[in-house]
């Protein structure tokens, strides 16, 4: 019986993924052709024996609801456990009152009632694998009040600019949580992942409400760094926050490197997802595919290099697709040449024969668009 209740949190107001987020929230983003981003935190919890999971949803819930459904595919006992979606009352973008604390407070009675002693909070907008049971044990053994997971990076000047970092003392005590402002190369990037006793969590929600009606959990924990024993634990392995279009594109491209794949996936840590029952992918006589992840249900007659190809996508003869993230059910027509783009679901590219962008600023083709 898992001690912890799992909470999957939504992203804060300052995070916005150009283009894609207009249609769905980040947790519902397609990932590596086959997954959705939210499959990672939910599978992490499921694999860690956490079988009561709440997924907090702030805006554009359709795609996420469709994907999570009853949650059966996440390998959770459907009677003793549950996967519950909890919706924010307001779905407006940039509503600064619509914080995680507000939704937690509205649903606090559910948490109070749950028999679980601890909570594990993980973001629905970051990709990593982590054994939460081990993290929970580390937390309990340390006797800290709150444990925060971080990832040490040495290119915080160029990336992770929407993330926060942990200011740690030598004993890994957290002295502050602050926005990464890109001034320092090496940073302990906060993975928006928390472990604490349920009572501590409930107290923090109340304290945050008292302090400010725009406060987030992160804000109140930052305030409490002096009073509570808050510790950082380093994460090992692949870690990628998805906080803008470039970030989404870059993490997808990074996973075309088998080394990174090894750091994210392992045979004893399955990542569950909803099956679409698409048939295997068909490669025809003229297909030429290199260095790519390809989902099922595709029909490929053209050239594909360094790409992620989503389910059911069709690539016609003469087409050249390079360094692209192509979502599901896309049509890339005859002789179309496209590079360095994110192509959203159901797009049909047939008339524009050359769609190029610079890899430092990847382009975006809208969902359902005919180009």
């Amino acid at each position: 019986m898992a001690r912890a209740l799992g909470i999957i949190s939504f992203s804060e107001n300052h995070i916005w993924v150009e283009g894609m987020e207009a249609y769905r929230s980040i947790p519902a983003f397609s990932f590596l052709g086959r997954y959705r981003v939210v499959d990672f935190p939910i599978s992490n919890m499921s694999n860690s024996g956490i079988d009561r999971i709440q997924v907090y949803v702030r805006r554009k819930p359709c795609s996420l609801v469709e994907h999570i459904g009853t949650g059966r595919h996440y390998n959770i006992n459907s009677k003793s456990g549950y996967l519950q979606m909890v919706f924010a009352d307001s779905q407006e973008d940039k509503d600064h009152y619509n914080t995680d604390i507000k939704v937690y407070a509205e649903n606090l009675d559910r948490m109070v009632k749950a028999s679980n002693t601890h909570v594990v909070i993980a973001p629905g907008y970051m990709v990593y694998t982590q054994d939460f049971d081990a993290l929970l044990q580390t937390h309990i053994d340390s006797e800290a009040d709150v444990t925060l997971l971080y990832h040490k990076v040495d290119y915080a000047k160029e990336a992770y600019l929407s993330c926060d970092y942990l200011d740690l003392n030598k004993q890994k005590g957290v002295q502050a949580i602050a926005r990464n402002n890109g001034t320092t190369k090496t940073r302990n990037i906060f993975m928006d992942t928390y472990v604490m006793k349920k009572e501590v969590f409930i107290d923090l929600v109340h304290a945050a409400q008292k302090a400010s009606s725009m406060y987030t959990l992160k804000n109140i924990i930052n305030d409490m760094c002096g009073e509570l024993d808050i510790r950082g634990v380093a994460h090992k392995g692949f870690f990628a926050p998805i906080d803008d279009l470039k970030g989404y594109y870059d993490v997808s491209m990074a996973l075309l490197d088998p080394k990174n794949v090894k750091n994210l996936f392992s045979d004893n840590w399955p990542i569950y997802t909803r099956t679409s029952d698409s048939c295997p992918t068909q490669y025809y006589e003229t297909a030429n595919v290199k260095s790519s992840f390809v989902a099922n249900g595709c029909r490929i007659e053209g050239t594909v290099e360094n790409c992620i190809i989503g389910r059911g996508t069709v690539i016609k003869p003469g087409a050249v697709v390079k360094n692209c993230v192509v979502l599901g059910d896309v049509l890339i027509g005859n002789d179309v040449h496209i590079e360095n783009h994110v192509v959203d679901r159901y797009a049909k590219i047939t008339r524009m024969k050359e769609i190029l962008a610079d890899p430092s600023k990847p382009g975006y083709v809208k969902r359902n668009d005919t180009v």
Partner: protein
Amino acid sequence: MKQNNMLAMILAGGRGSRLHDLTNKVAKPAVAYGGKYKIIDFPLSNCANSGIDVVGVLTQYESVLLNSYVAGGGSWGLDARDSGVFVLPPREKADANLDVYRGTADAISQNIDFVDNYNPDYMLILSGDHIYKMNYAKMLQAHKENGADATIAVIEVPMKEASRFGIMNTDPETGRIVEFEEKPAEPKSNLASMGIYIFNWKLLRKLLVADMKNEESNHDFGKDIIPTLLNDGKRLFAYKFKGYWKDVGTIDSLWEANMDLLDKKNGLDLDDRTWTIYTEDVPTLPQYISAEADIKRAFITQGCVVEGEVKNSVLFTGAKVGAGAKVIDSVLMPGAVVEAGAVVTRALVADQVKIGSQAVVGSADSEHIELVAKNVKG
């Protein structure tokens, strides 16, 4: 049962001994096909797509894997409140000794109590080892329109092959069956029985009860039940099926059925979104194609990793082809591994079998397809 009051029973007890080592541990319906499927996915998906809610799966030979595979029925959406997939192996009963299924009809007879729970109007009998897409609801409609007592699905086969099948001789105008001949030396028609029957349950129930007690009987639909119905002057109709249908009895035909999928306009069309074939969901990565890979004419599914050359081949879930390896005109079943530099030609590599580095299996001019069921050292 709510939808059409027809219950389906899938005969899945066959060993399929001509598939040799592939069926050493599993029954033929559980043999993998088409990259991600098992053969029994076809009748089960057809049932789900035809609006049939309750399916009994009659198992006998090496049924453990098949049982765990179909139990629950969730993979085919057959797990709603009023639906289900029920695995029915022979069982001991209060009033009868434990007895193996003596024939296809006996398998149903021994489960009359199960069917009675549902009290269906119609009974659909299917074979668990055929690959095809068929709307059984349309067949039922024809059955009703004909006022038939039984309807048998038939497919036209080349006349010269007709003597290998059970042949239905019909009235060309009405489609009513006048005669049934099992593997006739001189066939009068080319309408072969597909082993798919719809019966009015009340009538079939009566016949089965009588058949159980008949010591002369083979307890077989083709040999006993159908001839009895014809002798009794019952209304039997043929239902003509047009489309892809394959009984993969041998390694060669299983290989061939996989190769059929490589044609752009193949008759099975697994990409048909109006008639999806459902199967068990496996958590794997999507397929990864490396920088050195060279793939032409191939059907490849999730979990595969291709670093070598794949031509004219079908790769099943989790199959791997190492750098510099060649897989030509072959089928790699789930988890099969072809290590770096190995060459596989006109072969069917069984589940989880490893072809060692630089090893060579199969040959381009072999008469038969080579079945590789044991690891080959590099």
